[in-house]
């Protein structure tokens, strides 16, 4: 059976579980906070004086021209890179103080979707989607997995190997993999970069759906049409990287 449209999960409650956030003393909890952050390769700075906070349940787009530093910004968010200046807190913990195990544990609270999403090609789709549970040494109920794959329209491809999937199917599989552990934060780097407009809308709908379940979503994209379409569905804010700085974009978007 092929799914031509999105199938909402039958038991949405299973996937909208959100961990209780702890309020930081003297201020509200922020999923991610940048304080005067800079990042550079050698002497050249790619990002400078970046200060921002993402609140729980918020939806943000990050835009800017190619090479502006969108992917670098996201890598800073999930501690793949460490800032050369300033301070980043992820779930109220300073990333520079995180051990390698702490980084791994933090990533279990983050769903990451890349444009060139990578899978373990020797494992079927179902095993790839449950990979975050596998590495956390947790188990997934078969019904939950079927439900999730149905939600992204891939239930019929559970046994397929990743190389057999199309670009759009891979992106939807990446979203399923990103949300299976019910993360607090979803980071998507050009998730619609390799798919047509119709598929872009389907992927956007999935991200909006997740945001309505309470997830914090940050999407890096240079597709302004996608942003305009999203703003009709969700109260999304747009961040723009310009001249190495991250700014809140105006109403022109």
């Amino acid at each position, binding site marked *: 059976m092929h799914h031509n449209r999105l199938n909402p999960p039958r038991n949405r409650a299973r996937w909208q579980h959100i961990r209780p956030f702890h309020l930081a003393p003297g201020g509200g909890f922020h999923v991610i906070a940048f304080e005067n952050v800079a990042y550079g390769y050698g002497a050249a700075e790619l990002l400078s004086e970046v200060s921002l906070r993402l609140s729980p349940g918020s939806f943000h787009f990050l835009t800017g021209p190619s090479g502006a530093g969108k992917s670098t910004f996201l890598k800073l968010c999930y501690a793949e890179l460490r800032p050369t200046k300033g301070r980043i807190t992820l779930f109220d913990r300073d990333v520079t103080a995180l051990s*390698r*195990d702490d980084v*791994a*544990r*933090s*990533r*279990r609270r983050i769903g*990451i979707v890349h444009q060139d999403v*990578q*899978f*373990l*090609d*020797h*494992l079927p789709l*179902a*095993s790839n989607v*449950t*990979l*975050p*549970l*596998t*590495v*956390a*040494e*947790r*188990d*997934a*109920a*078969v019904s939950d*997995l079927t439900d999730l794959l149905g939600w992204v329209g891939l239930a019929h491809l559970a046994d397929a190997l990743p190389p057999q999937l199309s670009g759009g199917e891979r992106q939807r599989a990446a979203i399923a*993999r990103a949300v299976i*552990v019910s993360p607090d934060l979803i980071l998507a780097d050009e998730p619609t970069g390799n798919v047509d407009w119709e598929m872009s809308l389907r992927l956007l709908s999935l991200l909006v759906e997740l945001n309505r379940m309470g997830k914090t979503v940050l999407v890096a994209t240079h597709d302004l049409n996608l942003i305009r379409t999203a703003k009709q569905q969700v109260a999304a804010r747009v961040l723009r990287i310009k001249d190495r700085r991250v700014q809140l974009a105006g109403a022109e978007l």
Partner: protein
Amino acid sequence: MALRHPDRVVPPSGPTAWLTTATAAAMAFLAVFALALALASGRLADRWSEGLASSATIRISAPADQMAAQTQAVLDLLGTTPGIASARALDATEERALLEPWFGPDLPLESLPIPKLIEVVEDGSGYDAEGLRLRLSAEAPGAVLDDHTRWRAPLAVAADRLRLFGIASLVLILGTMGAMITLAANAALATNAQVIRVLRLVGARDAYIARAFVRRFTLRALGGAAVGTLLGMAAVAALPDADAAGGFLTGLGFQGIGWLLPLLLPPLAGLVAFVATRMAAFAKLKELT
């Protein structure tokens, strides 16, 4: 639906798979022979050492009419020599048996000027060989202390060294296996860099990733070493049996409970693989940050 074994996250095939198994098998095969060499050398050293401590021979060459008197004089002298437990003259039958391999069974012993042989058994403290030689020359001029067992001393030392070489070979073989498995593990980690990236992205700790590789390499080494060990044991069993005239080469093998010792090689190989892969994995994962 989650994978039951962590090693499934690593692709199942690759050149390193056969390399590890074949290396472990070859090294275990060689290790069986090194072990056999060490054990055989040990037995040889013990046998020669025991020979050293036990006996000497006195040869009396005298005219026929003086033979009995000199023999009795030597026996009397030995009876009063400290460090000698017992001494007895070999009878004609025993002497004939000694000469039979060279001259055949029909040797007319009585008509030949065969020296008289006295077997001397030492006690634990040993005796003064030089002092005994001087006394013999005085009491029985035709008597010569044939300290024939002394030539075994350097051989016993050599056998001891051979045993050490066997043990050192065993250690070197295991070390080489560890080094080769480390190289194979490094190659596997480098080949699977994308797998590692994906695992890290979804929150895998280094310990989890390392475990996936360690488990796989340990099992491969264990399996390869088991096959190599069995082949080695079969080869050792096929060697000719040791017999009285066989000497060292035919004695190269296992005896009794010694046959159980090679069975320790596969778990030992597994342990070496476990340690080598674990160290390589953590070092490589740190490098891949």
